[in-house]
């Protein structure tokens, strides 16, 4: 048992480290280090602009999408090399935020299901950051039950005509392409009538509207489709096979091993170390220490769970399903920690101004943003189902709409 690299891994790390050292935008280091929670906001730059510049540099240095095959713009790296790269890229990895959905989900789906032409046309530009992709799956009435989606695609000659609405699309407003799942046959059961496409987001009839979120920010969009024409050559997989194709995408979503999820523990520890309560520092209060310790061991438990997964990768094994716990644990922690940090401030915990003794309102912001962590990318409940069914082998839910044609499923008139 050790934390050491193999000689090969050490050599790879050294190469990666030197390259980052020589090429990273160091002027952004301090700002990127600070923003540990939520979306990245930079004072003087647009994240998409600096992100594109960094991604291009990486691509030219052969460090973009490095687990992809070389002919599609990657490096052909092993999974463990990808983890080592992420560790060495460090805070600059936050700059790749606009490309994560493309690299992690859309790209692998095009790679698995696209034609050779489509792969050669799209993947290198995705890897270089020249083109950004978004994922068009969720709908207002199809969240956890994504297979219940309504957006229609109808065949007209060699084209498909799309009408409907998607929601929660990160980056739709700056994306060049989108991965779209739509219903092509409402007369069969819901999983069977779906087909996957990709489309140019600048196509006529595509309208992107930002969503004002509960935390006051605008990070997601609604995307409306009105008679949008998609050539049949942009279909991924067979007609009616969209659900299987989407599983490729979603599997890749859950494969992000080694990426550290924020838990709020370092922020709370620091806060309690300086917060004066009536009887002294918060961190000297036994009740505070007890709460802090319980969260600290969850946070360290997540860290060492990811180390175990990295170790499996290093041995060439497929890591176990234990990684599915990361988002489940960290999402709830963020919310609980935020509310506890505010509780410690008493009535003043409600104040959010930059002058307040509330660490610039960071916990209040965490409180308002954390509900999304428990919903996006699989709700807590869906993640528990996944653990229960795929890890523990418990039976799946009884699905009352399983054998019913899609257009006969009750909708309560909505």
């Amino acid at each position: 048992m050790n934390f050491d690299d193999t000689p090969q891994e050490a050599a790879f790390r050294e190469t990666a480290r030197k390259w980052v050292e020589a090429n990273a935008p160091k002027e952004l280091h301090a700002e990127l280090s600070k923003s540990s929670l939520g979306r990245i906001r930079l004072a003087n730059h647009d994240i998409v602009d600096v992100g594109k510049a960094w991604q291009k540099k990486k691509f030219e240095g052969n460090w973009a999408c490095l687990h992809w095959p070389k002919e599609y713009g990657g490096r052909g790296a092993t999974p463990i090399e990808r983890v080592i790269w992420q560790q060495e890229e460090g805070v600059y990895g936050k700059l790749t935020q606009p490309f994560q959905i493309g690299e992690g989900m859309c790209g692998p789906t095009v790679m698995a299901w696209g034609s050779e032409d489509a792969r050669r046309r799209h993947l290198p530009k995705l890897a270089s950051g020249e083109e950004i992709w978004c994922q068009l799956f969720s709908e207002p009435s199809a969240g956890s039950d994504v297979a219940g989606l309504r957006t229609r695609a109808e065949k007209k000659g060699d084209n498909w005509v799309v009408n409907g609405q998607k929601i929660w699309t990160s980056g739709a407003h700056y994306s060049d392409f989108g991965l779209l799942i739509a219903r092509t046959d409402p007369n069969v059961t819901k999983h069977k009538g779906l087909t996957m496409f990709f489309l140019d987001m600048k196509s006529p009839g595509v309208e992107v509207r930002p969503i004002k979120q509960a935390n006051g920010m605008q990070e997601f969009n609604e995307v409306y489709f009105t008679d949008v024409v998609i050539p049949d050559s942009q279909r991924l997989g067979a007609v009616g096979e969209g659900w299987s194709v989407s599983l490729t995408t979603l599997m890749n979503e859950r494969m992000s091993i080694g990426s550290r999820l924020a838990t709020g523990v370092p922020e709370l520890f620091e806060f309690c170390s300086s917060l004066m309560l009536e009887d002294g520092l918060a961190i000297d209060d036994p009740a505070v220490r007890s709460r802090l310790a319980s969260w600290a061991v969850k946070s360290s438990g997540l860290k060492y769970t990811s180390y175990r997964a990295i170790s499996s990768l290093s041995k060439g094994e497929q890591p176990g399903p234990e990684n599915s716990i990361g988002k489940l644990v960290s999402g709830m922690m963020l919310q609980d920690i935020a509310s506890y940090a505010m509780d410690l401030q008493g009535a003043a915990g409600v104040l959010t101004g930059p002058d307040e003794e509330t660490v610039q309102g960071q916990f209040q912001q965490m409180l308002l943003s954390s509900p999304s962590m428990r919903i996006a990318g699989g709700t807590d409940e869906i993640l528990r189902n996944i653990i229960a069914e795929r890890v523990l082998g418990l039976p799946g839910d009884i699905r009352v709409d399983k054998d019913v044609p899609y257009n006969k499923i009750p909708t309560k008139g909505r």
Partner: protein
Amino acid sequence: MNFDFSDDQKQLRDQARKFLAEKCSPKAVRVVLDGKAPFDKELWKGLAEMGFLGVAIPEEFGGAGAGHLELCVIAEEMGRANAPVPFSSTVYLAAEALLIAGSDAQKKKWLPAIASGEAIGTLALFEGKGNPSPKSIKLAAANGVLNGVKKPVPDGAIADFAVVAARTGSSGRDGDISLFLVDLKAGGVEVKSLTNLDPTRGQAEITFTNCKAEPLGAAGDGWSILTQVLDRAAVLCAFEQVGGSDRALEMGRDYALDRIAFGRQIGSFQAVKHMLADMYVSATLARSNSYYGAWALSTNAAELPEAAAAARISATQAFQHCAKNNIQVHGGMGFTWEFDCHMYYRRANAMALGLGSLSYWEDQLIDRMRKKNAA
């Protein structure tokens, strides 16, 4: 990175699991639970023969000389089987204290006897209610004799010798505490069995009256040695707790698959599935924290104090959580004496206190994290 046990260590774990499945069935545990024997002597003998008792004891002292990672995998299996033997008191507490502070003669006398199963050892630390602290130790040592009362002493009624924490000064500092070795079969010792939550692991009160004792380690070093012993035992106990958590989770899962209600397996209800998923989460976090503890223990790393406290807290919480919800999944049947759920519930809650309670270790963890942050 190789943050995992080696193939040999995993093989040893399989070997221990197989051995315990055969020799330590729930039926065998129940003999002790029902008060028909103070511990499972046959199993104890078998553990010695397998080399498990001395796995971390150096060869020159009669052990297998393997190491602490090997001891961790065996501990996990002992917890999984709910073994009714004085393993933790003898191997994690007494043997570790001897390894850290024993003279050559003391090691030669006791360690081979531990490895061969001839001697049962324990640590006599507590004196009534309260958590480990130098202040709580009143038992007096003067002129080579001890006077005072220790309770609860784990496995005290069946132990052959004890490491005893005693007061040798009154300055109010840690240096007031010294450790002593006492042969419990010699004079000056009165042992009384105490009833307790988990009858598969006995507790006792030991009264020392002008009891002859030899120092273990230098005078005044007692508290510093004890802290090390408790940290090391915390990691080893964490592995028992991880093994127990996994077993309780498995029992709950199996029952949820087996039991039919409302015309379906109860494991198909989300209320039950989610409870089991949460148990899996706790058990996984505890396992990962314990692996880090194992690394720190086996390499004697500077991180051991923090790693041990984290493993202790995480594994205590996980075992309590899994044992409690295992009963809940079982419903009424889980509350019968006949079903084994309560054996894990008892063990989980007894283990949560043995080396000091959860709040004590939470306090320790924060102190240790602060120390690290300050450094």
